[in-house]
């Protein structure tokens, strides 16, 4: 019972104060495993709060007791950096991801993702599930990709916008949508979808999960966890989930 | 025809009721808390008896042994509840029409305007029940029950909140229902006079049991001796024949084998039977024929029994021919007049004390 009373927001001077990580929801599986590994290695706890990057950024802006912020895109990290709420020196690219086109597991459409490929035709009267185009990072990348491939106008009417990648994935997995544009990590974790193809890296801005120490953090363990994220053990977990590990 | 024989236990109260009335108005009479309203609830189908049967005009409404229970709407029994239970969201007119709507159109025998007129609720038709006075509400409730043209009517003290004058206007309406449309009625009341006037069967309840049952004359006369009943509740019922009239003084002459009774006003054609209710406290006994008195009516008879009750005594007068009267006098008077069992007496009845509107022209089995 007393555990819940842990004063997470009080000055983190005591040794066993957990490191509080604010992380984009899509990193949950991997980060939970990393935190568990860290705990076994060091005996210290990392408490990870998952939500959408935007909410987390605004909470940090409002003085949330976060030590580390892991964003799903660069924009929200920039937003905080501009407000001088993160320690710019600690910021780096943690993970990379790829954008892929998927279809339900029982479908069998072959498509090569090239400039002007006939996604609209392949979709027919079906829907293409993506994350919300201008708010959710996945959606933004998808829009860029489709635009640079010159097919956005033809498929725009067929897009079904989910509020997060996971939902878009779901729509495909349940067979509601004919295609979906999601991250490679998601596609890998969901057995009920099939990979149709990967979008060329050049077709969209790089998918990067940046990480940084929060300016207000005074938990001495926080930098250690931050560096643990680069450790071999962590890297293994991340790559196992399908993330790319980015140099620096 | 209504017949019932039921038992019910609610809380600590045990009700056991049985009566049968082949034709006419049954009066349920009893103290507060004696089980009158519960009985009506059983008849209306709002409660289920623990055991027993209820039959109306040969149709079994309830038979616990055989598992029969007819639902209230299929019973078509109109009820005037003790508190009016008007529908608050409907106007008076809509309340009145409510039952009518569900009555098969060929059974809509009772005239809307006539009922509204008699009950004095014509002006209230567009109003909502919350804006009515207590008595107005009760009159609307009576109208509602009448207008649904039921096969049986249950009245739970419908006239309690009304003045005597209104009562005397409404009672004939209730009675007409019975005589014109042959609707049997079960009527709950505290007022003996009300009961005696309209009923052909009186059931007296006491603590959930039938304590007395019979015709009004038989039941209400001997009632006074029992604890809890006042001597003012004692009435006698006499059946007389119209035999003439005094047109100059606007009086009707009623013949009884034992004498003549004068009634104010004109009451029916010669030869018709008239039932008269006489309160025991209204009768003056005389050892000889009356003279010099304002009393016009006297009946002769013999004293049957004398039942003493403190300073007073209830004297049963066995009238010549047929019938009996109960009179209450002081013991002192009896001794002074030397009256005892077997004495010849004259029972004097004031015309003004007889309510001519309570005298029923009776086709009943009396």
């Amino acid at each position, binding site marked *: 019972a007393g555990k819940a009373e842990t004063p997470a927001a009080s000055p983190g001077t005591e040794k066993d104060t957990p490191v509080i990580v604010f992380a984009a929801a899509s990193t949950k599986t991997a980060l939970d495993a990393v935190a568990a590994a860290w705990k076994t290695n060091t005996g210290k706890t990392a408490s990870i709060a998952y939500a959408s990057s935007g909410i987390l950024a605004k909470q940090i802006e409002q003085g949330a007791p976060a030590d580390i912020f892991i964003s799903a895109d660069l924009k929200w990290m920039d937003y905080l950096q501009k407000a001088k709420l993160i320690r710019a020196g600690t910021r780096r690219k943690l993970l990379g991801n790829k954008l892929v086109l998927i279809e339900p597991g029982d479908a069998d459409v072959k498509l090569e993702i090239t400039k002007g490929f006939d996604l609209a035709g392949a979709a027919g009267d079906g*829907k293409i599930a993506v994350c919300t185009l201008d708010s959710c990072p996945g959606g933004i990348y998808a829009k860029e990709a489709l635009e640079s491939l010159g097919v956005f106008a033809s498929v725009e009417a067929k897009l079904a916008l989910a*509020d997060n990648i996971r939902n878009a994935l779901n*729509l495909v997995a349940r*067979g509601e949508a004919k295609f979906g544009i999601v991250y490679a990590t998601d596609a890998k974790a969901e057995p009920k979808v099939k990979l149709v193809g990967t979008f060329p890296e050049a077709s969209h801005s790089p998918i990067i999960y940046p990480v940084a120490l929060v300016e207000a953090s005074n938990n001495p363990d926080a930098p250690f966890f931050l560096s643990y994220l680069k450790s071999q053990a962590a890297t293994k977990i991340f790559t196992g989930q399908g993330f790319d590990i980015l140099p620096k | 025809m209504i017949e019932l024989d039921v038992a019910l236990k609610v809380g600590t109260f045990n009700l056991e009721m049985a009566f049968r009335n082949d034709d006419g108005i049954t009066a349920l009479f009893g103290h507060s808390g004696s089980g009158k309203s519960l009985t009506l609830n059983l008849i209306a*189908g709002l409660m289920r008896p623990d055991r027993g049967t209820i039959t109306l005009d040969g149709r079994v409404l309830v038979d616990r042994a055989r598992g029969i229970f007819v639902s209230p*709407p299929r019973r078509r029994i109109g009820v005037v509840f003790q508190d009016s*239970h008007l*529908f608050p969201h409907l106007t008076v007119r809509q309340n009145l029409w409510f*039952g009518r709507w569900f009555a098969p159109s060929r059974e809509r025998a009772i005239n809307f305007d006539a009922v509204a007129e008699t009950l004095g609720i014509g002006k209230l038709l567009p109003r909502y029940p919350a804006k009515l006075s207590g008595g107005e509400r009760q009159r609307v409730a009576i109208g509602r*029950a009448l207008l649904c043209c039921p096969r049986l009517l249950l009245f739970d003290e419908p006239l309690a909140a009304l003045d005597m004058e209104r009562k005397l206007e409404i009672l004939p309406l209730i009675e007409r229902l019975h005589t014109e449309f042959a609707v049997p009625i079960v009527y709950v009341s505290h007022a003996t006079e009300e009961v005696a006037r309209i009923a052909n069967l009186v059931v007296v309840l006491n603590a959930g049991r039938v304590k007395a049952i019979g015709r009004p004359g038989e039941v209400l006369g001997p009632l006074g001796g029992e604890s809890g009943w006042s001597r003012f509740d004692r009435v006698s019922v006499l059946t007389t024949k119209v035999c003439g009239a005094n047109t100059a003084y606007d009086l009707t002459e009623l013949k009884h084998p034992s004498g003549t009774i004068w009634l104010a006003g004109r009451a029916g054609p010669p030869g018709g039977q008239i039932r008269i209710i006489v309160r025991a406290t209204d009768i003056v006994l005389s050892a000889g024929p009356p003279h010099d008195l304002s009393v016009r009516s006297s009946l002769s008879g013999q004293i049957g029994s004398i039942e003493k009750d403190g300073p007073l005594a209830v004297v049963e007068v066995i009238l010549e021919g047929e019938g009996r009267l109960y009179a209450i006098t002081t013991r002192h008077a009896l001794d002074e007049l030397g009256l005892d069992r077997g004495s010849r007496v004259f029972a004097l009845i004031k015309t003004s004390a007889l309510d001519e509107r309570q005298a029923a022209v009776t086709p009943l089995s009396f």
Partner: protein
Amino acid sequence: MTDLSPAEWTAIWLSLKIATAATIASLPFGILVAYALARWHFPGKMLLNGAVHLPLVMPPVVTGFILLILLGRKGVFGAFLASIGIVLSFRWTGAAVACAVMGFPLMVRAMRLSFESIDRRLEQAAGTLGANRASTFFLISLPLAAPGILAGAILSFAKALGEFGATITFVSNIPGETQTIASAIYSYTQVPGGDASALRLTVVSIAISLVALLASEIVQQRAEKRLASFE
């Protein structure tokens, strides 16, 4: 408010359509379930009661997900519905279903309270006057429960205006088809600098619900006056 984009106007119009449809379509079910819970005794009553409350207890995403599983094109009932021509997924009708489901517990509770507070003796009186169960229900119980029915409808309508979690999960967010004010607002809150737009749309949806509220209060006050013996 004149600076609303055409897309936003579409979202507003759609929200109104969806909220109205959700409220009206769930009304008969809500009334039935509320009445059953208030007046009847039947086996499984507690289960029904629990089921009605589910959308309140479960996070909207879960509700949306369950709807997807049941009513989606490939869902258990969805496949059947599709075979008779009723497609809900990615349609505004599906959004209405999601909103109706989310508003259902609120609607039922309000109605149930009103049904429970009706004096049973009035229903009994109607029975003795020859009204069968159905007539008694429509002529007596239903009008007397009007305050609760109105309150339930308003709650459901307001909830439908604010709902997006279950909706977006079930039917996604297709501009012009299923993008309501609420999901548009949500999108705005997810981009840096979107606050102003989010606020603008929030004000619109508040205004709509205030109008609905005001209308319902006026209707109710009128009914109340009749029932009051004095004010």
